[in-house]
Every structure is written in structure tokens, then in C-alpha cells.
């Protein structure tokens, strides 16, 4: 019997087929001119003036410059597009003198009129800005005094204004481009003044930036005058399971939100470096709904807080990379007060509190009842940041306590807001980032945009308002925020879990990786790729 021609033929054709597919599959990594950066969330829109996602800032903070920049080390504000500024004694007037040598990526000049056009775009109610519009306090008017000087007038003092003006959400866009494209299309044709130009964005697929060769007005916080990497391509990895694999296979050079176990493994294996970035702002937390039974009862909220072993949860889900959160602000945020730690894990105390509140397991089925009603809890968890895992552990802890707990995962910020609007939750996970603690107002003040606790307390409102109005005294503001933390803890308004630490992992070719004061945003201009 001669050799099987079919078998040989089969193998040969199979191998030929595989080889034929190889060239069709795109470029292999390793070219020094392109940096591949992985993003982990697909925002519904990527115009920073209109959308609230932190993820969009990762690419776009290199497309825009802001009037001022914040030094990541000292927290001080340094000149950006504005060379100098003066603030009136009553805190109601800010005058910015702008640089004269700045041009937008489309060639038009940056001037005071551009500043006004941008702020008007943000404040236009028809544009529905989700974040930037709320960062300007009680801004009354924006008036160019001359071609390169602009005055901002406020109705009341607003301490966080400089901080707001240092963020990408108030980055300066070309008025011509804003005008030409309008609020829904502009996100695909963004024009700024930054070290990188916006090339294109295909939703859920990729976003491309290219070096701006004319960039000559970088702030002092940038280590380099201009960018060295020619192109940066951002691709999306919403699925946690694929991020480490993307790094290992070379699909991306750097990506954030790596799981702790994967980060440890990647570093040990060699070829990768971990950059843990501690993010200021609110920690990963769950707000209690004080308007819905059973969490409308303070004792129940306190019992639920004490029934949770927070260090254990953080250890299980986040490994050794994340500190346990102890209040409404993460430990690296201005205004964090170490003097008001949260109650530790104490199961007997929690049980005692529940029974004192009347919740007892009368029929031995494992769930407590009161007046015939079972102790039922509904948790809404967003789908980012390992929230679903934390929610599952909370569910397990409270089921052991005798509650019947259901968890709903909201797929995205929009879905989260939609679920919240339905009102059928006892806990909801939400948190915002930022360097200025005034961000607490949107969640804790009764008129805040995200006042999802339903808790109304004039004392809390006044404290928060005063803290945002006092312009220059950080010590006084800190004392006020300590008071806020104390009220939050004593009224059990929220359950803090962990400080956000973004685990960014990059391969060893990536050098010079630094992040802005906000924590999330890499300073792309300072990056270099080793050959």
C-alpha cells in the first residue's frame, strides 16, 4: 500500500490555509512609531465637554490644553494656555491673560473669544453637558477684555474653579470646529491645541491620535517639550478576561485596570512593569437609599455596615494593591480626614442592632422578618471596577446575616442611571473622581445631581456649600470636609469599600509613563518607546 496521498494533501492544505491567513491579520506589534494603548470602557460619547466618563480623558487629555494645569506632585496650579491670572479678593472675578502663540490643530488662533465660545458650548442647555457644566459653579459671564485677556465672573465664590479649569472636560476646543460639526458630530472631529491631534474614532473599535509637530506651548508639568511617539492607537478591552492576554500577546503596549492577580503574574514573568496609580476622589462605595425600607432605618444601615468585613472583601477582590476606604473620600484626596474611621467588622453587634430594630428570624428559614415582611435588600452595581464582585460578596455577607439579597448589574453609566430612576434599590454603587473634594456635593448634597441617598439634612448641605465657597483657606475647607465625613459615617449614608488604585501595566519598552494629578490620564507627551 503506497503512502496515503490524502493524508499528505490534507496536512499540506491545512497548513497552507493557516499560513494564508497570517498576512491578512494586520500588523504585528514592534514598530517604534506606534504606541498601542488599551482602554477598558466604551463611553457612550467622547466629547469631554459633554460626557462624564473618565475613560475618554485618557486619550483626549493629550488632544486638549487647559487654561491652567495642576502639578501632579505638589497639587499647585501652573500656567497652561493662560500665562497668568488674578482672582479678586471677594472671589467673584477671575482674569486670565492668555498666551499669544497658540494655534489649534486646524490652524485657527487661540484667543479670548475661543475661551468664551468653549464655555458657552459647555453651558448651552441644549447640549446637555453631563459634567463640565457642573464644574463651573455659579458662573455668570465670560467676557473678553481684549484679544488675549478674558474675565470670568461668578455670582458666588467657587473654590474649585481653578481645579475645574485644569481638567480635560474644560479643555479648549476650536470654536470653528464646534460650530462646523455641532454637538453630536463634534466628538468624531475633535480639534484642540494639545501635543497630539485627533485623527479618528470608530466607536467600540479604535481611536487614533497623531503627534502635533507644531506643539510649542507645553506647561511646566510636561517633562518633554513635544511628543516623541508618532502615533497612539487606542483599542477597547471592556472584558476583564482579555486585558492581560492582550498585553502578553503584544496587542497592546500598555493598559489599565488589570486584575491584581494578573498584574502580579505579569511582573513576576518579566517583561512588564506595574504602575499602581492611586486615584483621588470618591472610593468604590455603595450609597444607601434612606428612603426605602429596610434601609430607611438608621439601625439597619449601621447593622449592614458592621456585618461586612471590608478588609476581607478588598483582599479577595483587589489583592494587596488597594487600601481599604474609610470615608467618603479616598485617602489621597485633599480634605480626607483620617480621624473618622468607619466601624469595623463586628457581626454580633450587627445582629444585636437588627434584633433591636425588630428584625428576627421567626420561622427558621434563614431570613429575618418584621411584621410579616422579610428583610429584603436590592443592590444595583455598575459593571466597572470589579463592582459586580464586590456586590456579590456584600450579598453573601448579608445573606449570612439573615437578609434576602438580590444583585442587579447595570451595563454602563446610562443603565445605572436608568435603574436608579426606577427607585427600587437599597444600595447603589457609584463614585466620581477628582482632586477637589467639592465633588462630594453632587452625591451628598440634597440638590446634587446624583443625590441618590435621598438623605436631606440642611446642616450637611450648608457645610458642603460653605466648603465650596471658601476660596483660599485649605485648612478651613479640610475641617469642613472632616465634618462631612463625620455626618456621613454617623448617619451611615454610604458604605466605602476601597480606594481606587488603577493598576496600569506596560511592557518594558514603554518609558517615561507618568499620570496627571487626576490619576487616570497618562501624559502621552512624555512617553518614549525603546527599540
Amino acid at each position, binding site marked *: 500500500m503506497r503512502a496515503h496521498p490524502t493524508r499528505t494533501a*490534507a496536512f499540506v492544505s491545512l497548513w497552507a490555509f*493557516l499560513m494564508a491567513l497570517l498576512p491578512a491579520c*494586520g500588523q504585528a506589534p514592534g514598530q517604534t512609531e506606534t504606541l498601542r494603548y488599551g482602554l477598558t470602557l466604551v463611553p*457612550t460619547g467622547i466629547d469631554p465637554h459633554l460626557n462624564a466618563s473618565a475613560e475618554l480623558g485618557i486619550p483626549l487629555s493629550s488632544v486638549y490644553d487647559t487654561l491652567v494645569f495642576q502639578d501632579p506632585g505638589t497639587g499647585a496650579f501652573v500656567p497652561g494656555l493662560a500665562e497668568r491670572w488674578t482672582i479678586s479678593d471677594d472671589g467673584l472675578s477671575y482674569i486670565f491673560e492668555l498666551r499669544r502663540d497658540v494655534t489649534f490643530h486646524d490652524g485657527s488662533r487661540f484667543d479670548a473669544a475661543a475661551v468664551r465660545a468653549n464655555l458657552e458650548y459647555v453651558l448651552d442647555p441644549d447640549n446637555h453637558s*453631563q459634567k463640565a457644566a457642573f464644574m463651573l459653579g455659579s458662573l455668570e459671564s465670560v467676557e473678553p477684555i481684549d484679544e488675549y485677556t478674558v474675565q470670568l465672573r461668578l455670582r458666588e465664590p467657587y473654590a474649585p474653579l481653578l481645579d475645574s479649569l485644569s481638567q480635560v472636560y474644560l479643555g479648549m476646543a476650536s470654536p470653528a470646529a464646534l460650530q462646523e460639526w455641532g454637538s453630536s458630530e463634534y466628538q468624531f472631529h475633535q480639534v484642540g491645541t494639545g501635543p497630539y491631534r485627533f485623527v479618528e474614532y470608530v466607536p467600540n473599535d479604535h481611536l487614533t491620535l497623531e503627534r502635533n509637530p507644531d506643539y510649542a506651548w507645553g506647561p511646566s508639568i510636561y517633562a518633554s517639550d513635544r511628543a516623541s511617539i508618532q502615533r497612539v492607537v487606542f483599542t477597547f478591552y471592556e472584558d476583564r478576561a482579555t486585558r492581560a492576554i492582550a498585553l502578553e500577546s503584544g496587542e497592546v503596549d500598555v493598559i489599565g485596570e488589570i486584575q491584581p492577580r494578573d498584574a502580579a503574574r505579569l511582573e513576576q514573568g518579566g517583561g512588564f512593569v506595574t504602575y499602581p496609580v492611586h486615584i483621588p476622589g470618591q472610593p468604590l462605595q455603595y450609597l444607601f437609599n434612606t428612603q426605602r425600607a429596610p434601609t430607611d432605618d438608621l439601625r439597619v444601615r449601621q447593622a449592614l455596615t458592621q456585618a461586612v468585613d471590608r478588609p476581607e472583601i478588598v483582599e479577595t477582590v483587589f489583592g494587596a494593591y488597594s487600601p481599604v476606604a474609610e470615608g467618603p473620600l479616598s485617602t489621597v484626596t485633599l480634605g480626607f480626614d483620617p480621624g473618622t474611621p468607619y466601624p469595623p467588622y463586628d457581626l454580633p453587634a450587627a445582629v444585636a442592632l437588627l434584633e433591636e430594630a425588630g428584625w428576627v428570624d421567626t420561622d427558621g428559614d434563614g431570613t429575618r422578618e418584621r411584621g410579616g415582611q422579610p428583610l429584603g435588600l436590592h443592590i444595583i452595581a455598575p459593571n466597572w471596577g470589579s463592582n459586580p464582585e464586590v456586590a456579590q460578596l456584600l450579598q453573601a455577607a448579608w445573606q449570612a446575616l439573615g437578609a434576602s439579597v438580590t444583585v442587579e448589574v447595570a451595563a454602563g453609566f*446610562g443603565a445605572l442611571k436608568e435603574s436608579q430612576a426606577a427607585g427600587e434599590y437599597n444600595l447603589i454603587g457609584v463614585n466620581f473622581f477628582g482632586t477637589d473634594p467639592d465633588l462630594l456635593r453632587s452625591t451628598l448634597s440634597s440638590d446634587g445631581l446624583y443625590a441618590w441617598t435621598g438623605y436631606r439634612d440642611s446642616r450637611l448641605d450648608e457645610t458642603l456649600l460653605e466648603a465650596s465657597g471658601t476660596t483660599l483657606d485649605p485648612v478651613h475647607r479640610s475641617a469642613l470636609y472632616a465634618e462631612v465625613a463625620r455626618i456621613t459615617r454617623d448617619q451611615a449614608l454610604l458604605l466605602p469599600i476601597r480606594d481606587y488604585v488603577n493598576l496600569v501595566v506596560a511592557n518594558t519598552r514603554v518609558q517615561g509613563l507618568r499620570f496627571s494629578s487626576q490619576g487616570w490620564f497618562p501624559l502621552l507627551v512624555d512617553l518614549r518607546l525603546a527599540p
Partner: protein
Amino acid sequence: MVPAPGRPAPGALSALIIRCLHGLLTAWAAVTVTFFGLRVGAGDPLAGILAQGLASPQQAEALRHSLGLDRPLPAQYLSFLTGLLRGDLGRSLYTGLPVLRVIGGQLPSTLALGASGLLVAVVGGLALGTLAAWRKRSLWGRSAASAAALATALPVSFTGIVAILAFSTLLSGRAASSLYALRHLALPALVLGIASAGAIGRVVEAGLSQSLASPYVAAARARGVPSGLRLLWHALRPALPPAVSLIALEAAYLFSGTVVTETVFSRPGLGRLLIGAILQGDYPVAQGVVALAALFYTLSHILADLVSLGLDPRLRGKG
């Protein structure tokens, strides 16, 4: 009556027309089922917009009116149909972008995966089926037959994960990055095509076995066609038509397969788009993707029928 020589059989053309009309009817049925299936649950499609503060109540009312959501269901259905004919699939509720554009952005990735998967299925199916029928009693033949049966039973979710695991553990670190391209498309295509390869393989095996035992092949042998590849080709030809129709049908099933494959390998594409739209409640996008998929499925069916008609004169029917 014997038809006049030189004219095509009268049955062929009418069969073709009937098939096309039937196809149109099926296509209409598909998009109708899509429209009503989506509205099985009660709920306001605009609840999400209002909840997000993307529109004030007055603007939501205006939007509701402009989208025609305040009209009775039959009227909405009619405008959906006319919109479909115009190529207007509406706008995403969350991003406001035209659905057609959103789909267009994801289509190339899914097409690439689907086409490669189909290639794997056809090549694999032919190889498995031929081996199983031609070398029936040898180990190779029996293994091929078992492999085909096994392949149909394995869900893509599992084979995908095994593939990733095998690939990552066998080639980790530097080797993995040099075979980057392989992982990017070939592996998902392989995984996707395996299940269809099994189905195609079984049909090829059945047809080829029958053909090899038929008088037609015995006659070829008697004419002196040597055993081996030439005889195989002789035997394969009549076995092809059912396989080809199956291939056309599998092409449509591949779309369902891409949904899972894209999830397993986290590839961008219509599958991930659909799942995301379902989880977020973005009805226009979900509706658009499924309607297009159903239309494609119908087209494949029509194509399958036409190919069978073309390949096998016996199916053309009487006049």
C-alpha cells in the same frame, strides 16, 4: 409533449421565480418577527434617555413624537418597514448615531470572522467527510467520522476557551507575540468553523459513501479510471449538491456563532454590539442587527436553493 429542442426546460424559470418570491416573503416575515419580538416586554424605550438627563420631559415628548413612538403599534411597524427599505434603521437611543452607521463600523470585523469561519468549515468539513467515507474502515476514517460527530456537539463557548487555554499555555511570552496574527483571527475562525465543519463533514460522508457504492462509480472503475484521487473526484461530484446547500445554510448559522465567538475572544463585531445593546436596552440597535442578520439568513437560503437547482438538474422540476 417533448419540449422543442433549443429552449430551456419551462420548469427552471418558474422555479426560480417561485424561489425568489418565497425568499421575499421569508425576508418580510423575518423582519416582522424581529419587530414584534423585540416589543414582547412592556416598557418605555425612552425611559433610559429621561433617566440620564439627556433630555428634558418636553424634549422627550418631542423625541417620542419624532420617533413615532406615540403612534399605535401598526403605524410604527409600517414606518419601520418603509425605513428599512430606505436603509434607515433609526438611531441608537444611547449615542444618537444612526444605527446603520454603528452597524457599518462593526460589520467588517464580523464579516472577516464569518468568512474565515466558513472557510474553515468548508475545508474542514470536506476533509473530514472525505476521509470518513473513503477510508471508512481505517483508523483515519473512523477518527474522522467521530471527530465530525463530536464537533457538532461541542458548543463554541467551550471550544473557544479550550483553544485560548491551549494556545496560551503552549506558547507563552515571546512566542505568543510572534504568532499574534494567528491568535487574532485564525484561532477564532478555527473555533467558529469547527461546529459547522462537523455538520458539513457528516453530509459529505453520507453522500460520498452512497456515491462510492453507486453504479455510476462502478462504471467509472470499469472504464478504467484508476483508484485514487481521480476516482474520488468522480465520486465526489454527485455528493456535492446537498453539501453545498448545507454550506449555504451554515453560512447563516455562522452569524449566530460569531456572537459567541466574539464574546469568547473579545473581538469587536456585531455579536458584541448586539449583546451590549440588549444589556443597555438600546432597542433600535438590537432591532437593526437582528433584522440584518435575518435578511442575510434568508438570502443564504435563497442562494442555497439556487445552487441546488443549478448543480442538480433533477431538482428543476417538471414544466
